[in-house]
């Protein structure tokens, strides 16, 4: 055991609930005898005002330098236990309720023994804790918005409403993006120029927005709060005989990517004759021509729209492009508005007009637009200026021949070239459809890089309304990096370069690319990019990396102190590493759900199952622990992208090591536990205990 310290141990009876199962008095007696323990007390309700006040007073009076709170799960009462008059990293929570009294109530004797063992190891952890303070990093109060379309413009304006500066970079010579060239917005059927003009004049008059058109990002380095962006401007002056690219560097605290979309080219769908037949155009071309000339809407008397051209198609764009149904309805209504006798037919598979957009669909039907449920197989030139559309009308149950003057192919949105460029230039992760990868449900505006956000169609096909909303949400998130300083919680990892052998595994496995090499080629973590998942800690074969609130030394010490036979000589002891997002919480739910499991398991919460280090596992086995259980989120739900998957693959290395030690590889196990899989967790523990009983006690255990 290390330097003893002056530790206050507080046991909560939880208004009697915990004390009914666990004999707190005996624990008080036991703990009083442990080195470094200055005071041990039980209390009926530690989290009450009185309880907190008492601890605070004792910390002051007795000069306590560590506090152990044995009570409910650390995920509860966080506010209450955050202000005890001592650095919060010197407060250790021991979960003797959710993971002890509530699940082992059928055997109070064993529950008490387990609680005692838990107290022992977390006391050792506390002894080795250090006081940590948040780190403040100065940051630049400038945002970079890449892309000057609807999303980019709105994001820039949203940010410039505060006191931050904004650089708005657009590769075309003008702002406005794709929709600037369009005829109408849906559902209000107003011209984009109206809204855009207002936005553009606001941009112009905003003193803190700097617009760089005909410019592109060529490189991005640095970290959140302090990105360094290289912008290349193409010289467009006619008088410049030498095309000199002008390069400038800008410092930005946050970056919002709004690189938008491109129309999908329907040429490969040769059956529709785009490019070969006259009068077959795309929906984007319709918009542009309708905007360019008023007469366009009246040039012909009949128009057919074909939906889902190239979208929802395995061979082209497998996804739905979201807007095409509304676009065709909007365009059809424009035709009817110009000439109510215009013969408009929409050939569709499904009509997707969610929410209030249904109104426009109804309006379209009322206006006499014909909707035929069936997708044509091909188009033919019937005569000059006439296209034959043969389609199976699935509702009428028969084939119909249509001859129209013009066909509009409702083609979809593909990710813009800009997106692939981003991936190549600045390492932004793209999903399988080449849009910016984000956690669509919970964090739609995040990319996998801290401080870099996405807005608009570069993330997924969406309409103007949603683009503007997404821009707002990206702006709000970005603002957290634009306050002039960034405060980083001290949970981030620290690398012990004395142990490092430059294998670079930490760098490779970090999902957020937070590592780089310093001048001496040692890994250095960018704390503003770090999400404190601990995957690096788990990756290091030499145990050189530790997290702020969980270190290799602490774990080592805990393994020394753990009573490997706290339930007696015949009962195996399992050490569990449960991920804080899913597995640990699922385990916490057991008591409430009336689910119980054997008391042979003591769990340690880790940020991610990927944080579990193979050296620690081997050490645990060699110190006599009978079994190790690692529990992480289901692979595709891991909050840190690849933690669970990594934990599993690393098990293979551990298995080999165990075999060398003549230890059964079954003594280390991984299980995926989702947030609500409490029963599965309990079953796993029961099964594991039974298996370990069959295997027998760890032969390396010192009797």
């Amino acid at each position, binding site marked *: 055991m290390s330097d003893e310290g002056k530790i206050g141990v507080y046991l909560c009876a939880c208004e009697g609930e915990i004390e009914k199962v666990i004999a707190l008095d005996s624990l008080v007696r036991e703990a009083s005898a442990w080195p470094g323990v200055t005071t041990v007390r039980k209390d009926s309700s530690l989290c009450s005002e009185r309880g907190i006040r008492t601890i605070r007073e004792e910390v002051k009076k007795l000069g306590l330098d560590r506090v152990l709170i044995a009570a409910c799960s650390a995920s509860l009462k966080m506010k209450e236990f955050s202000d005890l008059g001592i650095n919060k990293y010197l407060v250790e929570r021991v979960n003797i309720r959710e993971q002890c009294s509530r699940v082992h109530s059928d055997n109070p004797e064993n529950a008490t023994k387990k609680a005692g063992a838990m107290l022992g190891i977390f006391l050792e952890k506390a002894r080795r804790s250090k006081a940590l303070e948040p780190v403040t990093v100065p940051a630049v109060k400038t945002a970079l918005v890449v892309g000057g379309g609807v999303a980019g413009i709105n994001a820039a304006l949203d940010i410039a409403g505060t006191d931050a500066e904004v650089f708005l970079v657009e590769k075309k010579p003008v702002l406005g993006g794709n929709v600037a060239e369009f005829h109408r917005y849906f559902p209000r059927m107003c011209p984009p120029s109206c809204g855009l003009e207002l936005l553009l004049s606001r941009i112009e008059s905003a003193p803190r927005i700097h617009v760089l058109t005909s410019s592109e990002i060529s490189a991005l380095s640095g970290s959140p709060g302090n990105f360094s962006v290289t912008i290349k401007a193409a010289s467009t002056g006619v008088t410049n005989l030498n095309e000199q690219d002008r390069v400038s560097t800008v410092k930005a605290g946050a970056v919002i990517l709004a690189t938008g979309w491109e129309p999908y080219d329907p040429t490969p769908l040769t*059956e529709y004759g785009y490019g070969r037949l006259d009068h077959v155009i795309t929906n984007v071309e319709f918009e542009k021509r309708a905007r360019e000339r008023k007469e366009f809407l009246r040039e012909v008397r009949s128009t057919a729209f074909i939906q889902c051209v190239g979208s929802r198609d395995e061979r082209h764009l497998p996804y739905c492009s979201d807007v095409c149904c509304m676009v065709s309805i909007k365009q059809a209504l424009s035709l009817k508005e110009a000439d109510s006798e215009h013969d408009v037919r929409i050939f569709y598979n499904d009509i997707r007009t969610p929410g209030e957009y249904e109104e426009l669909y109804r309006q379209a039907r009322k206006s006499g637009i014909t909707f035929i449920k069936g*997708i044509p*197989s091909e188009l033919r030139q019937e005569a000059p200026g006439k296209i034959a559309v043969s*389609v*199976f*009308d*699935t509702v009428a*149950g028969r084939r119909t021949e249509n001859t129209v003057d013009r066909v509009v192919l409702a083609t979809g949105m593909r990710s813009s070239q800009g997106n692939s460029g981003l991936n190549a230039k600045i390492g932004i992760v793209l999903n399988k459809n080449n849009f910016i990868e984000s956690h669509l449900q919970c964090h739609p505006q995040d990319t996998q890089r801290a401080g870099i956000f996405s807005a608009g169609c570069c993330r997924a096909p969406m309409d103007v309304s949603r683009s503007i909303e997404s821009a707002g949400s990206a702006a709000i998130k970005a603002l957290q990096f634009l306050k002039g300083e960034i405060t980083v919680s001290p949970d981030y990892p620290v690398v012990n370069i004395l142990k490092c052998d430059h294998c670079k595994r930490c760098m490779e496995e970090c999902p957020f690319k937070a590592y780089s090499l310093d001048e001496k080629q040692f890994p250095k973590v960018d704390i503003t990019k770090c999400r404190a998942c601990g995957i690096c800690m788990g990756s290091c074969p030499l145990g050189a990396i530790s997290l702020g609130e969980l270190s290799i030394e602490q774990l080592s010490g805990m393994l020394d102190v753990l009573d490997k036979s706290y339930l007696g000589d015949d009962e195996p002891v399992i050490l569990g590493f449960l991920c804080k997002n899913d597995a640990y919480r699922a385990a916490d739910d057991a008591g409430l759900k009336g689910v119980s499991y054997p008391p042979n398991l003591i769990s340690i919460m880790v940020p991610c199952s990927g944080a579990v280090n193979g050296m620690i596992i081997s050490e645990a086995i060699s110190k006599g622990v009978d079994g190790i259980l690692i529990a992480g989120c289901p692979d595709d739900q891991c909050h840190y992208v690849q933690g669970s998957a990594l934990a599993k693959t690393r098990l293979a290395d551990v298995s080999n090591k165990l075999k060398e030690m003549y230890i059964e590889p079954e003594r280390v196990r991984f299980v995926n536990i989702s947030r609500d899989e409490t029963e599965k967790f309990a079953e796993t523990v029961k099964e594991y205990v039974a298996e370990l009983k069959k295997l027998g006690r760890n032969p390396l255990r010192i009797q």
Partner: protein
Amino acid sequence: MDSELIDREKLKCCHHCGKCSSGCEPNRLDPSFQPHQILHLIGVGALDELLTGDAIWKCTTCFTCSERCPQGIAVTDILWRLRALAFRSGRTSELLAAQKDVLLKTGRLYAASPLDNKKREKAGLPPLPEGSSLVARIFKVSDEDE
């Protein structure tokens, strides 16, 4: 009714956009033949109805549907599988039964008669075998443990 010959996974993805039927020539001339309807009927368990009907025999195997299906469903192959299922259970056209006979006896779809071989000889072409058990053997080998 056993139907393991049909790739059900891909089939489930059909949402009846009708593109197959829209480009189907037999459908144009005979609207009772609707490939997208056939796929739907398989999905809702009306396989028996399909195997006893005559619709499945109207496919000219032109592959237009398979080429253009947005879900990548091999519609033509499914039609073939349906026919094979019908054939297996004895529900088949006379023509096909006759064709199987010729194949089993001569190994050819079009038998080569002595007259045919005389014509070939006159034209300086090598003769054709007038009988062969090859196809019969192949059917036998294919049946074993199939």
